[in-house]
């Protein structure tokens, strides 16, 4: 039997040692609750399973040239990332409850936390949460706890995927969620300020926003703080190689999706939610946190710290229910950031921005195609308006080998002819030129 080492004679020997039969081991389950055997297929060999899975993988269009984004990007991943995280001392370990034999995992978490703090200009990060959407949900819960208020104001240029997730997660709570409509692809400052009051727990903004546009939210941080509300910023971490940081803008909590930092797209997960904050709020933050300390001989070591916030100690009084998080994905992002280093992250971010700017120019020179948000600076993603339905164009481009599109019109009814385009460092000039030709041909 695969993955079971004990032979039948050994099982017999063990049963004799404890004086029971295999059937008696399950005698505590009432007979009427026993199942009569599962109606499942018989097991397959490793080779058969591989052949089956290879067939399924071949049905996926992962070879399409990718201009899809929406918060999830086709970045290059250096070979050393998978080589290192594939070492089983990392991936077959679990939560480092025993620090003496988990220094590898714990030091990596501490280094990861330090990387996130340096990228975002914040003081403290946790060890990870599930993804960018749940990170935002946890940030909202943190703001409620800190302020004892229940009103949350989102600009609708925050990803609709994440706004929907926050609403689903908080549906059974006495929470008021306000969404102000963006103004021309930028946050609606007047609308946000009109909503901001003494009942507001937090204002939630995103940079770059769902349309790819970039901004400086320093004024909104000041306005929020004046009402003793918090500013939460959801950020695209790779963009922080060059963009003004949420910390520098005065954000109190920064969250985001870490997939861009060395994780494969993998059809939606596993990804990496990051969450970072300023020191005064660290005890309100959910999840594992690694801290530095030393042993009796003065040797430096790392432990899980501030555990009294967590569910295994505090149960229903915990800051969150999170237990298992995305440790291995956080490790991937750490290795990725080490490989890029101080110069590399700037170069990769700038390369994406340059290629996006080139793509924008190529596409908007096509007759009938124009940039949706004039004069709006963007990072590596932007919206164009087409003379026809974007869905139809998306399908015709797919037939020509290009993956592009985001369901904008589901969330913004006046954007049925709008197409969101993301360009990473992986796209070559030649791919961009053929993409532009293909778009021109299908219009």
């Amino acid at each position: 039997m695969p993955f079971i080492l004990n032979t039948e004679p050994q099982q017999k020997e063990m049963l004799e040692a404890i004086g029971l039969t295999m059937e008696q081991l399950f005698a505590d389950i009432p007979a009427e609750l026993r199942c009569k055997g599962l109606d499942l297929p018989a097991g397959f060999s490793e080779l058969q399973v591989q052949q089956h899975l290879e067939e399924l993988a071949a049905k996926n269009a992962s070879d399409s040239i990718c201009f899809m984004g929406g918060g999830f990007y086709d970045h290059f991943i250096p070979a050393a990332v998978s080589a290192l995280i594939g070492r089983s001392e990392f991936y077959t370990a679990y939560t480092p409850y025993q620090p003496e034999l988990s220094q590898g995992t714990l030091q990596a978490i501490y280094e990861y936390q330090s990387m996130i703090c340096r990228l975002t200009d914040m003081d403290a990060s946790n060890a990870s949460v599930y993804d960018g959407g749940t990170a935002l949900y946890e940030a909202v819960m943190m703001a409620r706890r800190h302020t004892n208020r229940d009103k949350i104001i989102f600009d609708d240029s925050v990803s609709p995927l994440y706004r929907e997730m926050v609403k689903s997660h908080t549906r059974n709570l006495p929470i008021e969620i306000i969404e102000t409509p963006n103004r021309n692809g930028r946050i609606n400052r007047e609308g946000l300020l009109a909503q901001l009051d003494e009942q507001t727990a937090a204002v939630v903004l995103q940079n770059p926003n769902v349309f790819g546009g970039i901004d400086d939210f320093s004024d909104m941080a000041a306005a929020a703080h004046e009402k003793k509300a918090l500013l939460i910023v959801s950020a695209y971490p790779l963009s922080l190689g060059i963009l003004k940081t949420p910390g520098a803008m005065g954000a109190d909590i920064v969250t985001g999706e870490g997939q861009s930092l060395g994780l494969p797209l993998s059809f939606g997960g596993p990804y990496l939610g990051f969450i970072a904050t300023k020191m005064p709020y660290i005890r309100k933050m959910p999840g594992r946190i690694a801290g530095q300390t030393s042993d009796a001989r003065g040797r430096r070591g790392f432990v899980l710290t501030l555990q009294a916030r967590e569910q295994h100690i505090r149960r229903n009084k915990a800051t969150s229910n999170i237990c298992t998080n995305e440790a291995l994905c956080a490790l991937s992002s750490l290795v990725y950031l080490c490989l890029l280093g101080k110069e590399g992250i700037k170069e990769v971010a700038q390369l994406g921005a340059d290629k996006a700017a080139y793509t924008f120019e190529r596409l908007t020179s096509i007759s009938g195609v124009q940039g949706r948000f004039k004069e709006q600076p963007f990072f590596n993603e932007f919206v164009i308006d087409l003379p026809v339905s974007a869905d139809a164009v998306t399908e015709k481009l797919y037939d020509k080998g290009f993956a592009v599109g985001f369901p904008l019109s589901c969330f913004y009814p006046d954007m049925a002819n709008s197409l969101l385009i993301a360009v990473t460092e992986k796209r070559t000039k030649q791919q961009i030129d053929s993409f532009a030709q293909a778009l021109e041909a299908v219009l």
Partner: protein
Amino acid sequence: MKLIFEKSVPHRRGVRSARSDVPAKNNIKPGLRRDQDADLPEVGELDVVRHFTELTRRNFGVDTNFYPLGSCTMKYNPKTSERLAALDGFAGLHPLLGQMPYAGVGAQGSLEVLYAAELLLREITGMAALTMQPMAGAHGELTGILTMAAYHRDKNNKKSTLIIPDSSHGTNPASAAVAGYDVVAVPSDQNGVIDIEALRKAVTDEVAGLMLTSPNTLGLFNPHIKEVCDLIHGVDGLMYYDGANLNAIIGKARPGDMGFDIVHLNLHKTFATPHGGGGPGAGPVGVVDKLVDFLPVPVIIKKSDGTFGLDINRPKTIGPITPFYGNFGIVLRSYIYLLMLGQEGLERVSENAVLNANYIKEKLKKYYDLPVDALCKHECVFSAARQNQNGIHALDIAKGLIDLGFHPPTIYFPLTVKEALMIEPTETESKETLDAFIEAMITIAQMAQSDPETLHAAPQTTVVGRLDETAAARNLNVSYCG
């Protein structure tokens, strides 16, 4: 050892970026740029490889050592799952291809994996449908409770409390609380399972449901399960099955047949995906017929033409709880595991998990107190109370085991047992390994009497000794400031 930041050398490079083949078209003004570079380390690829390889030497994993961490099901993870999950057809697929263009024509392989895995898990749990969206066990709990809340809202039931036994995992009361429910804790009886008389008193019309782990955290199967279900269903409450311990009964009994309405599974535990040093996991949630309409969208469906697609038109849904379809890469690994084991293999899983746990229990009960001396399922829980008389605590036993080459069991949990030692060997360990572990535990029991000082000083074989956790919390240093 040094931090990666302390190995930084100015101007050293790891990867070289591609030369740009487009003109530098800078549309980002200085005011929108960061004014100082992110202070990332400057290291070469070899520095990085040596650094992380050195870190791996400072870790225990299932591949290096026996890892009987109770309630965590640290079984062996097949290597083929890693190879297949890395296929570009799976790893390189953008999640939006599941929705568009042509409603997911470019993602038929991955949609089929999600659909087929769900069918297998329906049969294993006895549930009518599952969502693969929850990204870990606790996320599954929250999803299940939100589903429960939606059901009560739909029926105009006024419900405010969830009943949770005192032996439960900490995530249960935490999930109930973050979902907006008050928690009513019910004590265990002298047999270690939920006290049925106390439960009877706790059941009121306010009760939305009850969360139960069976076998529970003592490894005991609840003999009153039918009665518990009847009590809760009597007030239109829902029965929630915490599937963390499903490994004990897989193929032998199904939560659906026991009367449960909602089930979450921990794929990383029962279905053999790597625990990753603390994740990622996956926590699919299954429900009975009357709750199917409330499951998160999108729902993966098989259409009449045999192709796979998404159904988002579900008016009663609790909404999406992930951006797309959950931790696809984890579901994929579990699907591979299920295909390899098949029906017969799964039954051998629970049999050997239970046999291994009972073998350890019987061999060690002369040496350690056994709070409930009964047949256990996948794990057994001892108490270090006897060793306490010599000043030895569960923590000292754990540290002593490290020096003998074993990952310690879960300690101080469940909270219902004083000085708990919770041992879960899993089915993938051999008798030889169990015998060596049993011998180590007996050695430690003897040392507790003859040489407690050595246990107090353990571990001695690791790269650091016991660390000062009080200092870590008092002088918080959670980010490198060099």
